[in-house]
């Protein structure tokens, strides 16, 4: 418990002071990317990790929100209104996704979400009058909440950090709540949950909305970060990438998706500067994770840590005569 609190405090201090010790603007930007992708991964983890519903269409939702925000700004709306509409469009898209895909679970759910994601990608690519097609949409400015211009790298990082911390806190509260427990129950024994009086479909639907909200929030940070959105963002590879963040870090854990997001973003942006075949490296890392820690980096490391700890205490006990330390 204390170890955990201590680790969280250290992580918090590291994040808050990051722009002061990080070697340059480029790396602060990488940190911002990690944080908003982490929010995206948290959102997918609600379904894939806690709900047992693997979605391969989340990039579509992400993209719809980003396009909606970008388009509203192009129409001349202010930032607050554009963000609000972006969130609402993202949530509405998620509700439609959920209504269609919650008719099934397992492979069926994966295939329906995949198909919906592809439809949105096709629309982004072909509905040129709205999306600009291959050319995408550009955003001219970033917002200036309370007079802090997000055009500044450090300010943008802090804004992202605040949103990330709020999202992480919301996730923590949800997982510990009765609704969170009910969602995990529907993942493990849907039939039993139904017999116990739970509305399995509705629980899953609410989980979808929560997942959609986090996805939309991360999409808005993304679109302000890149100030550009193109169909590539909605492609199947983007959906797969965020799913890999969740699985490699540890699906169904709080920290897993954050660690997974850090891993993928660092390899994609930083390591790719040194190694041309970074995709190959990322693949090799995933294979290694699946073989060595199939439950993901966070739970896997925790398991190894416990193992090492037990060995050490046993070793210490055997040195000190150990006769009375039987357990």
């Amino acid at each position, binding site marked *: 418990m204390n170890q955990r609190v201590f680790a969280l405090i250290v992580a918090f201090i590291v994040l808050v002071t990051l722009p002061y010790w990080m070697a340059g603007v480029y790396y602060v930007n990488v940190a911002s990317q990690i944080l908003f992708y982490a929010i995206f991964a948290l959102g997918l983890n609600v379904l894939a990790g806690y709900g047992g519903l693997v979605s391969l269409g989340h990039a579509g939702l992400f993209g719809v929100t980003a396009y909606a925000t970008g388009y509203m700004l192009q129409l001349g709306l202010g930032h607050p209104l554009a963000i609000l509409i972006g969130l609402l469009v993202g949530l509405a898209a998620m509700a439609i996704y959920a209504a269609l895909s919650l008719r099934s679970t397992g492979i069926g759910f994966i295939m329906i979400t995949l198909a919906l994601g592809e439809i949105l990608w096709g629309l982004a690519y072909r509905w040129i009058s709205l999306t600009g097609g291959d050319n995408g949409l550009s955003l001219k400015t970033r917002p200036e909440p309370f007079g802090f211009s997000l055009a500044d790298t450090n300010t943008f990082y802090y804004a992202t950090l605040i949103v990330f911390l709020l999202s992480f806190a919301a996730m923590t*509260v*949800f997982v*510990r*709540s*009765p*609704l*969170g*427990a*009910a969602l*995990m*129950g529907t993942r*493990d*024994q849907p*039939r*039993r*949950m*139904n*017999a*116990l*009086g*739970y*509305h*399995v479909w509705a629980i899953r639907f*609410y989980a979808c909305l*929560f997942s959609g909200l986090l996805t939309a929030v991360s999409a808005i940070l993304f679109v302000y970060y890149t100030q550009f959105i193109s169909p590539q963002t909605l492609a199947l590879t983007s959906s797969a990438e965020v799913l890999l963040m969740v699985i490699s870090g540890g699906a169904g854990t709080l920290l897993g998706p954050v660690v997974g997001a850090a891993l993928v973003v660092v390899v994609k942006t930083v390591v790719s500067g040194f190694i041309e075949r970074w995709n190959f490296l990322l693949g090799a890392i995933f294979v290694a994770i699946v073989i060595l820690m199939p439950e993901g980096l966070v739970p896997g490391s925790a398991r190894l840590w416990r193992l090492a700890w037990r060995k050490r205490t046993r070793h210490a006990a055997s040195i000190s005569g150990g006769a009375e330390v039987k357990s």
Partner: protein
Amino acid sequence: MSALTIINLCKSFGGLHVTTNVNLNVEPGERRLIIGPNGAGKTTLFNLITGELTPDSGSIQLLGKDITRVPSRRRAHLGMARTYQIITLFARDTILHNVTLALLGLSPARWNPLLDLKRQGHFIEHARAALEKVGLAQIANRPLAQTSYGERRRVEIAMALTQNPKLLLLDEPFAGLSIDERRDVKELLLAIPRDVTIVMIEHNMDVALEFAERITLLHFGEVIVEGTRAEVVADPRTREVYLGH
């Protein structure tokens, strides 16, 4: 008013008639045993009563209220609880959490995304008390995966009982248990108060006969014999279809 009334209930899967014109009337507080050879349609009848399957025709009444079209999750709220032939529990969680989920299922708090479930004292106390009754309080915090089959059976019964059911459906509660475990579960079931009506499917006649007051014999989806314990056991058709001697 009967606890459970079934009128002309029919269900077929394709050409297979698994439930054919079943009529059943269980009085409040009664202990009813349903027997029949494998494939007689006993579990299907349970699934129809709990609403996991929808009947082709006929009706089901719980305490005088027609529930034929009521979704199965609502039936739990109307006072129906069940256990499964194949134990169906939450293996990743502790025993206590399993029972807490049963309690939460009937509480409006199950929709709450903000409360901390571990700090809801009344749920935890209630769940502990239920585990006390089935003799599992001392291992309440053990993960379910580390419990024995007999303990899991008792967890299932504890979960059903915490919901304060008016009608309890037990699908082979003694299956797969050792002699000692069987004795424990039997004592547990005998201790259930009379305001709970119990319908039980069971093959293990030694324990089940002692428990049941009335017995219904199903064969190929039809009720063949029904009556008191002595009547059914003495009936030649029971010997022919079920007891086999």
